């Protein structure tokens, strides 16, 4: 089954006409981010969006409650999740598409987070294989690939001469394809464009985890942390980081409770009201980042909390290269 580029744009327009929200990589000013599209031709498949697709399910900020105090009585209301729109997330590379499936585990760990899970339920993901990468990419080292189908409901493979081969991977994908069947054509003999396979050394994740299991204390953490500036760029751009803060905004009368992105790299992340801070020093905080991604999440949920997208490498203000760190651990 194939889809021409024009028909991909028409698919987006058709979805929009049906009041489906379509989110995809869109160029806004100097950068490309995942954003709601107003028409098909706004789709920018040439750039990896600056932020990951996690914000479609886990927005940078969202209201979880509102409250009002009047005449001594407090009333609390919560957002109507039925108002969340049906969404198609389109043009998602495997490093972004695989992440929500990894995050499902923590957002449904004993308690189902409805804000995240409702969005997941209402979203169909159309992934696309990568034909361009740079030397920050390392998806292949963490069990993914430029054409990994993991996490996608429909998957597009760019073809020589233009257009895409289309695969339907599950019921959601098939349903979407059926509803717009006229836009899809029969298979063609066109060959796929060469995939962009990151030229990186492989990683033995089990070996890395085994080292992490034994080396909570190790000079490596201080060496890296000597450089770490303690910002949240890596965590916020990461498709898999999910830490958040819950804050009340307003005052003693009416206001809202919101949850918004937070990062374990921030100095005050674990500070108690008494001013005691279990992770008082950057080395402890950076260690927690690596441990969480490559050990704790595996201990708890059997998965690695990293898809090798490389954003943290590209955007770290002080040039910390997580792949280099992992290579060093892998070599021990």
């Amino acid at each position, binding site marked *: 089954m194939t889809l021409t580029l024009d028909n991909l744009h028409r698919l987006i327009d058709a979805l929009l006409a049906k009041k489906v929200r379509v989110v995809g990589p869109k160029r*806004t*000013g*100097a*950068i490309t*981010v995942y954003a709601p599209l107003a028409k098909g031709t706004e789709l920018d498949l040439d750039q990896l969006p*600056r*932020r990951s697709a996690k914000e479609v399910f886990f927005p*940078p*900020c969202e209201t979880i409650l509102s409250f009002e105090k009047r005449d001594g009585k407090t009333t609390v209301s919560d957002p109507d999740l039925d108002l969340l729109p049906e969404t198609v997330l389109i043009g998602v590379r495997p490093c972004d598409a695989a992440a929500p499936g990894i995050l499902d585990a923590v957002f449904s760990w004993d308690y189902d987070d409805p804000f995240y899970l409702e969005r997941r339920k209402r979203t169909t993901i159309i992934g696309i294989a990568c034909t361009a990468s740079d*030397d*920050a990419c390392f998806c292949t080292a963490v069990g993914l690939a430029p054409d990994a189908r993991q996490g996608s409901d429909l998957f597009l493979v760019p073809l020589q001469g233009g257009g895409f081969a289309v695969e339907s991977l599950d019921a959601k994908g098939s349903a979407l394809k059926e509803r717009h069947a006229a836009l899809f054509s029969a298979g063609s003999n066109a060959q796929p464009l060469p995939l962009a396979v990151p030229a990186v050394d492989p990683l033995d994740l089990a070996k890395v985890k085994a080292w992490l299991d034994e080396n909570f204390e190790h000079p490596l953490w*201080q060496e890296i*942390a*000597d*450089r770490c*500036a*303690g*910002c*949240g*760029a890596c*965590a*916020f*751009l990461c498709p898999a980081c999910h830490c958040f*803060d819950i*804050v009340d*905004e307003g005052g003693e009368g009416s206001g809202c409770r*919101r949850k*918004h*992105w937070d*990062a374990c790299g*921030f100095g*005050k992340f674990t500070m108690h009201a008494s001013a005691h801070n279990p992770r008082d*020093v*950057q080395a402890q905080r950076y260690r927690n980042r690596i441990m969480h991604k490559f050990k704790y999440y595996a201990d708890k949920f059997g998965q690695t909390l990293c898809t090798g997208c490389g954003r943290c*490498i590209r*955007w770290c*203000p*002080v*040039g*910390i*290269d997580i*792949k*280099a760190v992992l*290579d060093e651990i892998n070599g021990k």
Partner: protein
Amino acid sequence: MTSNHQNTETPLIDPACYAAATAAIRTEAVRLLVAGEVAAVVGYRAGRRTGSVMPDVATTVEAAGQLLFSPACQNNLALFLSKAKREVLPHGRVAIVVKGCDLRALAGLIGESQLRRDEVHVIGVACPGVFGANADLSKPLSAEGLARKCRACKVHLPEGVDLVAGTLPPLPDLPDLEAEEIARLEAMTPQERWAFWTEQFSRCIRCLACRQICPFCFCTQCLCDRNRPQAVDTSPRPAGNTAWHMVRAMHLAGRCSGCAECERVCPMDIPLNLLNRKMAQELYELYGFEASMQPQEQTPLTSYRDNDDQSFIK
């Protein structure tokens, strides 16, 4: 000297000058460590990715021999001598590699009593320019890749340092894009300007990379991290974002060294240096103040004179 750089294969700036600076830094760093004059040299070393560079605290001769200077040496290493990176100074006496813009930050820290001049051995680099934000570090430095701040730089040659590494090559003469952008904003109505900035700040995700990379944001508890009172909402919403950036610009006015690192590290491409440069312009016009490569103890917002211009109080 005017150069026409249409051909991106010809480097904008003679790469030999970077190589010469590298050689001088390595020689000096090794000499200092071997002689025991310093316990560590804060400089730059190569990263894993082609052309990439990262800050390094070199404590061994081997590490000192890996230090380098290239157009990718964007970081302001003065950050590593501030209170925010308090693990570095306890090594003992340190040497530091600084470009002119970084040296202004170092001088500022000394002026604010965060550091003493005799605690550091300063290796100043004769710097013709470095890459800006979003540049491809694996390619040769081009006019497009050059940091905007470098086009307006007046501190290519460091002063008051212990050693100048390298010499300046012929420098390209390029239009000052930042000044043009500031003029464009100054020509706007207040409403247009407000619309411009609120649109920029709407992209802010409060990663605080701008704060963490700034050598002058060394407060042990940032005003915006306090919750009694909650000066600025922490959630990444337009009002809080705008307040955050306004507060930071005001707290840096009269201190900012113009290294533009805040702008480089912003993952959302917010042109933060325009704010800082505008503040710097205001302070120059009102009080004749500029950031300098020499420490200044009296700065406009930390001192008072009877004849201070007060015309802006209406």
